[in-house]
């Protein structure tokens, strides 16, 4: 395309036409340079990957003083995760905080495979003991309690773990009960 073919071509002996032929070549190199320069600019100036988002729904804030009648959660269906500092999780597997065994059974786990394994294990155990509910869902409940020293990343990781393990019932709770405070002691800060 760059070389524009000269029409006719002329006879062999014609020197004039031959010299014209060579001069019609256009050097594309600077144009290519310019093209790549602009590409570089656009690559650097744009955001290529769009971030994704997780949607979070929290229960209504209850302003009325009237206590709602709800069935208390059975401790044997609940895995409580306390998100502590330095990326540690304190897990209480199917035990209430005021249980005698709670002190000894409070497990320290780290994020990633460790936590995921624990959730799967607890989930399987609850399913074995309680079976599915009348809607065919697992009765396993996970309560996530981020402590003061935990970071935003910790919370997102924990919520993400819920998505990975397909735990449909989970709650994000920020208040600790007195029993839990006592159990966690100085870890709660």
């Amino acid at each position: 395309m760059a070389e524009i073919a000269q029409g006719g071509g002329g006879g062999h002996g014609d020197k004039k036409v031959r010299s014209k032929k060579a001069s019609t070549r256009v050097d594309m190199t600077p144009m290519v340079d310019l093209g790549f320069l602009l590409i570089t600019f656009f690559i650097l100036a744009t955001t290529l990957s769009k971030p994704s988002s997780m949607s979070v729904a929290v229960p209504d804030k209850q302003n009325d003083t009237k206590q709602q009648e709800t069935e208390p959660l059975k401790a044997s269906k609940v895995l409580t995760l306390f998100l502590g500092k330095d990326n540690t999780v304190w897990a209480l597997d199917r035990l209430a905080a005021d249980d005698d065994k709670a002190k000894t059974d409070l497990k320290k786990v780290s994020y990633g495979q460790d936590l995921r394994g624990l959730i799967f294990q607890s989930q399987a155990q609850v399913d074995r003991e309680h079976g599915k509910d009348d809607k065919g869902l697992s009765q396993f409940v996970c309560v996530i309690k981020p402590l003061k020293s935990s970071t935003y990343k910790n919370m997102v990781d924990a919520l993400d773990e819920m998505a990975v393990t397909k735990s449909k019932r989970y709650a994000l709770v920020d208040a600790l009960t007195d029993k839990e405070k006592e159990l966690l002691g100085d870890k709660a800060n």
Partner: protein
Amino acid sequence: MPALKPKRNYPMMDMTAMCDVAFLLLTFFILTAQFKSQDAATIETPSSISAIKVPDKDLMIISIGKDGKVYFGVDNPNTRIAMLDNISQTEGVQFTDKQKKIFSLQANFGVPIRGLSQWLQVGATTPDKLKEVVQPGIPVDSTAQNELAKWIYQARRANSGLRIAIKGDNVAKFPVFKDVMSSLQAQNINKFNLITGTEAPPQGWKAD
């Protein structure tokens, strides 16, 4: 046999094809370009396996910086101006047209209402200096001084279809997030999005 004469003309490569490719790519990048917006603070978000994309428009973003400062931003410049007008009415702070213009150009900001006029004045007089001003973050802590709640309320008055996204930094502490969440909950906003990076789900995992 005569000795080979050295070629006079330089070897010429045909650049046409390369030129075509370069401009094709250029066209692609121009068309798909979404320019990076100038943010008040750099925020490194955690990643999640979630595949829901952040909506393109009608978005309100509350950012939490790594030092716990809170920034607020709305995507549409017109909404920004309407929101500022609302704030100026309710809080009794006056802004000049020039200041409003500057405000509409900011992707997000972290300045208390009291210092807003002064901050925008810097932008009106010396636009280059605006970026260097240290922003203290929007107060969220106590209920009386909760300016974030005011901004959220006024932004929603300006555009009722706004969706709410929270963008937190990896190392931001949880209590700050809790404060932001309670400002939202106080206005009966119970559903919002957390902006995260994308990460691959574990092997064999399927969405349902």
